[in-house]
């Protein structure tokens, strides 16, 4: 008898891969970037499906396929989640302490830099025409 297609293994693996590649999309919104719960939710669903598929493959091997590729897929899925977690919980938190950054009550260092139109913009000019300035530093490389 031809054994049945074990769909949860395939769907589960696709969901885990989608959980990884959707990070770029979810990182656009603070609510899914500050903590990437949407990605972890996809990982959870994907691994649950993979486990269901593996139980079927090993429990009823005469009915369902997937003992070998199911094992390979779940290994890859676990590695993907481990690497993602390493990035999120370790790499992203390696930020310099910036102990010398201006503190509340200190005067901020002046600057004169070119804007996106090539025009020089100084902190003094910005301050003279406003009640205050929000200075935001970016990692850049856009």
């Amino acid at each position, binding site marked *: 008898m031809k054994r049945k297609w074990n769909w949860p293994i395939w769907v589960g693996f696709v969901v885990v891969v989608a959980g990884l590649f959707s990070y770029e999309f979810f990182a656009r919104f603070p609510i899914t970037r500050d903590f990437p719960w949407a990605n972890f939710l996809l990982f959870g669903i994907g691994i649950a499906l993979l486990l269901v598929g593996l139980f079927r493959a090993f429990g009823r091997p005469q009915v369902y396929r997937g003992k070998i590729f199911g094992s390979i897929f779940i290994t890859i899925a676990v590695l993907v989640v481990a690497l993602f977690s390493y990035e999120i919980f370790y790499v992203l938190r390696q930020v310099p302490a910036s102990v010398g950054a201006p503190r509340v009550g*200190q005067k901020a260092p002046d600057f004169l830099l070119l804007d996106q139109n090539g025009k020089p913009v100084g902190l003094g000019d910005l301050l003279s025409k406003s009640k205050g300035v929000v200075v935001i530093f970016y990692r850049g490389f856009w």
Partner: protein
Amino acid sequence: MRSFQQRLSEFGTRGIRVVGISVDPPEINQRHSQKLGYTFPLLSDPSAKIIRRYDVLHPAAGPKGADIARPAEFLLDSNGVVRWVNLTENIAVRARPEQVLEALNQLSPAGQ
């Protein structure tokens, strides 16, 4: 940054300017701000001189080991004195505009 652009008018009505600083050259900043519709100044500090002066350098953290700025936000009053600062411990977690607006409300309640 997208979120600051979305709420830029709220800063404007309070007389507060918003500026961004990164190591990217003006051409890249122009392309980027056109693409995403940014209307506030996006300043270019290619040698990271100002970034160093603010001690917000993240050495070798950019592509190919380039020195870049770490994420940081400073709210300055009209004398250039820091009134609020956010130095995140996680690159992915940035100050949201509502946090800065809230800090502004604390410093000068509406109507003053």
